[in-house]
């Protein structure tokens, strides 16, 4: 079990879970509108974890995922990733394009565009939930879609002042009897992780506070 900050209090997990629940609920509604079918959600799994433990958290860390990458601008900085497995992307694409899964072509620009837009809308749902709970206005860059193993995607991430804590929310949706899962990962920059924790009324864990103090000191 990857070490995370759970031992430092349950309150912040409740708050993160609330972000996950609100975001997943909105994401389910948005997805439902896109595919004109009912979408139900499970209670999401939300954690604040260290990036070094992330690969232990997800299933199949050495396999390729489709990952939507968005840079945040405005009052909160960092990167947001939303990842789905290729099989889930195929299912989602088939629902969006109205074709059997076996006919989905990953090279088709329309399929790639549909996945990018669907994941972008889902991410928007989560970020709206975060915005409403924190009071911060969150703006996004134009997203891009990558397909690679996650470590490669994260290594390529050039977020300045990247914190080592990330918010991870795993959600399961059910669409037309099929389970569709996606993982939301918010990798905030250092100032933003502190702003978020403070805004959510979460006590900043001591270890994180010490790290933030150390990272905020000028190099010398």
């Amino acid at each position: 079990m990857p070490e995370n900050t759970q031992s430092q209090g349950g309150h912040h997990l409740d708050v993160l879970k609330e972000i996950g629940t609100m975001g997943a609920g909105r994401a389910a509604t948005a997805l439902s509108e896109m595919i004109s079918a009912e979408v139900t959600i499970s209670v999401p799994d939300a954690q604040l974890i260290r990036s070094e433990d992330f690969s232990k958290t997800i299933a199949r860390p050495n396999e390729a995922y489709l990952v939507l990458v968005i840079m945040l601008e405005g009052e909160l900085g960092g990167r947001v990733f939303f990842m789905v497995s290729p099989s889930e992307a195929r299912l989602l694409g088939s629902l969006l394009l109205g074709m059997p899964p076996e006919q989905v072509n990953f090279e088709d620009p329309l399929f790639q565009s549909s996945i990018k837009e669907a994941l972008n809308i889902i991410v928007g749902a989560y970020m709206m939930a975060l915005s409403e709970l924190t009071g911060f206005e969150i703006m996004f860059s134009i997203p891009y879609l990558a397909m690679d193993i996650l470590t490669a995607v994260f290594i390529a991430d050039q977020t300045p002042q990247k914190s080592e804590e990330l918010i991870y929310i795993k959600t399961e949706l059910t669409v037309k009897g099929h389970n569709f899962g996606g993982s939301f990962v918010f990798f905030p920059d250092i100032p933003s992780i502190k702003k978020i924790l403070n805004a959510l009324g979460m006590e900043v864990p001591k270890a994180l506070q010490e790290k933030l103090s150390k990272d905020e000191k000028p190099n010398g």
Partner: protein
Amino acid sequence: MATRVLVVDDALFMRKVLSDILKREGMEIAGEADNGKAAIDKFTELKPDLVTMDIVMPKVGEIDGGLAALKEIIKLDPNAKVVMVSAMGQHALVVEAIQAGAKDFIVKPFQAARVSQALKKVLSGESSAA
């Protein structure tokens, strides 16, 4: 005569989804563009009755996204009917667009009824201007 619409969005899928809704409403797709600069060029060339404009698109040349393209189109034709297309959480950009001359907005994912309502309102001369 069918209303002629210029559909502007950098996402191929969204252009298709919106175009399908518009066609079901009896409108004609005059053209498409995937960035703000192309939108301005197409607007000048095609003179559509209505434009749907995605707010966030890549910068091409001097035109950075849908908001910049909107402003140029309004300069070309102050009576241009432009409906902005936004994602969730882009409220501030929508407000700026309305203040810059956009007549209304629709939010992704599209609800066909909402799209129809917004376009009919704009074509009848109403707007959401503050």
